[in-house]
């Protein structure tokens, strides 16, 4: 990630890895609910990874107490489920 800010090759690797994760997640979403089309599942996967990537950065802060981290993880789980449920509601 650090290199990707300066180095086009590293940026390509970063994008490739992100696309791989998005693709895996979107396939899983389509397995969960086959009414998701490919594009919709890709968008949803990307939304989920936006939150997870951002959260990963913030949870690096070891100054946070374990209870605090647990509380944030719980909130994140609620938000992730909410995003998926909202997407399912839209196609129903």
């Amino acid at each position, binding site marked *: 990630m*650090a290199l990707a800010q*300066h180095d086009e090759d590293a940026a390509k690797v970063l994008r490739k890895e992100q696309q791989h994760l998005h693709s895996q997640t979107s396939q899983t979403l389509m397995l969960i609910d086959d009414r998701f089309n490919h594009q919709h599942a*890709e*968008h949803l996967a*990307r939304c989920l990874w*936006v*939150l997870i990537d951002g959260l990963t950065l*913030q949870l690096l802060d070891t100054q946070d107490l374990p209870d605090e981290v647990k509380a944030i993880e719980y*909130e994140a789980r609620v938000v992730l489920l909410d995003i998926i449920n909202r997407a399912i509601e839209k196609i129903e």
Partner: protein
Amino acid sequence: MNKAGDSKSDQGTLDKIARQDRGQRRRQEIIDCATRLLLESGFDGVVLRDVASSVGVQLSSLHYYFPTRSDLVLAIFDRESTAYEEELLASISHHKNIDGKVAAIVDTALNVIKGPEAKLWRLLTAYAQHNHNAAELFFRENKLFHTVTARALRNIEPTLTGKRSMHIAQLFWAMIDGLALQTTDAKNLDTVSLVETEIKTTFNAMIHSAKNI
């Protein structure tokens, strides 16, 4: 005091103000230059000697404003977080209802990651993974952004507790930070706008559900 004395004292005050202004301008010039170097060459590119030479001051003069490289880097990011807070407060004040104020919080944060300064945050995020000082700066700035956002949330919705507003602020910034990392890929701008909409909906939902707890 006689008139001549008054006039001398006034002149002294004016001189002092002018010196402070010059000092303030010079300080900003140094930060501007260091920001440019940071964006061009990363953290290793911010070398005090190069900054001094580029601004046209002696190294000793630069040390007067910023004794160490860390102080200068800190000033770069503090200026960004201060600008964010000012923009956020101004933006919120333009709206009267809760939804407008909440949208102002989202839009101000999105402006941060869409502007040229976004690369500063991405660099800091990346550098913080393997440098202790950068990690400390990263967490310090993160806390500032979370606190400013949580405070704004409590002003908008006073029923939120301090802890809850901090959690919402932290999750909100997790989404914004995650999006900032993904926006390096300019080919996916259509998806970015969809993610933005999702962030707005999610943020609204978090605040409304928090009100009901």
